[in-house]
């Protein structure tokens, strides 16, 4: 399908561009690692504590690090007026959005997959107990963050104070996904499966993803073109 092919073209372009300059991913990764370490100093958690806060800690780190990647998403198109060329090209706003969101998700996932073992080492925590499920939850939550972040990157692309505004706008909106991710991650890192009343969080996460992806695809063209 042309739509998917175009999405992939855009995603590949973004990834290639980012992997060559490595600006966003370096900033994001260093930021994430530094915060992880700082939290370790600040709270010096025992094994018990770590188990309780692992989800909250990790997702705060991922959310902060993610902002650096997501912010760049549309603003990288401003150099040389590339965004205009993309809008003038026969690609729909939603394909453009989806391609970028895919690239962002992969970049953020890469950062997260590096942070997990670092977390394991510095907090003396075992996190591989439920790894497949943990990975699935991470992918779902990362997609949720990415959809919102990429959309808002498009919304604020022309603004001067974009870097300051994006986090302020985006974090409150991500709360449902973050809450769900935190609850589930704490559970999974402790080695327990998702069951019983904890399933609502999984449902919330999936619902969040579906609803916001649909909204973003529907409104992308409006935001980008008018």
């Amino acid at each position, binding site marked *: 399908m042309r739509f998917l092919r175009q999405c992939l073209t855009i995603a590949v372009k973004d990834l290639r561009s980012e992997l060559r300059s490595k600006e966003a991913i370096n900033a994001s990764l260093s930021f994430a690692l530094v915060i992880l370490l700082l939290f370790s100093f600040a709270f010096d958690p025992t094994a018990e504590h770590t188990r309780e806060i692992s989800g909250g800690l990790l997702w705060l780190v991922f959310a902060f690090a993610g902002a650096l990647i997501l912010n760049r998403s549309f603003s990288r198109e401003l150099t040389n007026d590339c965004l205009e060329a993309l809008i003038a090209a026969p690609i729909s706003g939603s394909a453009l959005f989806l391609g970028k969101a895919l690239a962002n998700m992969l970049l953020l996932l890469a950062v997260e997959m590096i942070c997990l073992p670092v977390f394991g080492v510095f907090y003396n925590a075992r996190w591989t107990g439920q790894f497949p499920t943990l990975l699935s939850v991470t992918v779902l939550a990362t997609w949720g963050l990415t959809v919102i972040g990429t959309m808002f990157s498009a919304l604020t692309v022309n603004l001067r104070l974009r870097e300051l*505004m994006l986090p302020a706008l985006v974090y409150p909106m991500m709360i*449902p996904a973050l809450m769900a991710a935190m609850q589930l991650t704490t559970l999974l890192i402790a080695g327990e499966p998702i069951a019983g*009343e904890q399933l609502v969080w999984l449902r919330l996460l999936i619902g*969040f993803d579906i*609803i916001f992806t649909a909204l973003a695809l529907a*409104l992308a063209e*409006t935001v980008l073109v008018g």
Partner: protein
Amino acid sequence: MKENNFRRNTLYGLAVLAALLLARNLHVILRGLPDEEEQGAIYRIIFFHLPAFFTAAVCYLLALVSSALYLVKRKARYDALAAAATEVGLAFAAVNLITGMIWARIIWGIWWTWDARLTWALVCWLVYAGYLMLRRAIEDPSERARNSAVLSIFAFVSVALTWKAIEWWRTQHPGPVLRIRGAEGAMDPAMESMIYWNWLALLLVGAVLLAVRMRQEQMAREIDALRRHAHAL
């Protein structure tokens, strides 16, 4: 001209009605209703705390509908309505937050408690404050209207999901709750009806504020256009 007079008179009428209703409600609240068993006199704050919450929710819903209408019809007055509704909603949400904090302070001695409704009101407040921040940052009126309309739709969905999330969170990790309960969790009918009466009063106040704010938006747009005209000449 005639339309302006009619509009102004209606607004004055509404404002007077709201003031009278508020005065009557206050009288009943302070003198008519008895003290509540556990909480003493302070429980009366619920008559502003809860209706403010409801009114804010109504305003946000209005903002959602108005934003969606703007995107479909592209008429500037829908954008003005969305902006006005959000601002008025924020004002009432602030009332909800402040009364909640006072209430918590008096009952439990702490300024804040992660009570579900209070938490939700805070998140809502942050989300919609972001809406106003975005509006202020975009200069072109059409772009401002369009982008803030999209934001408003996202915001509403987000706060709806947040409500559910907080509810589930509080079910799994219970905490202090700002409520008044009777013998079986039901409320004294006199108190319950008072909540609704005061909600009506607050809605009237909200309507007046909304109308005034909308007129402001319209005038600001006209001035902006005149300014651009002047620059072009």
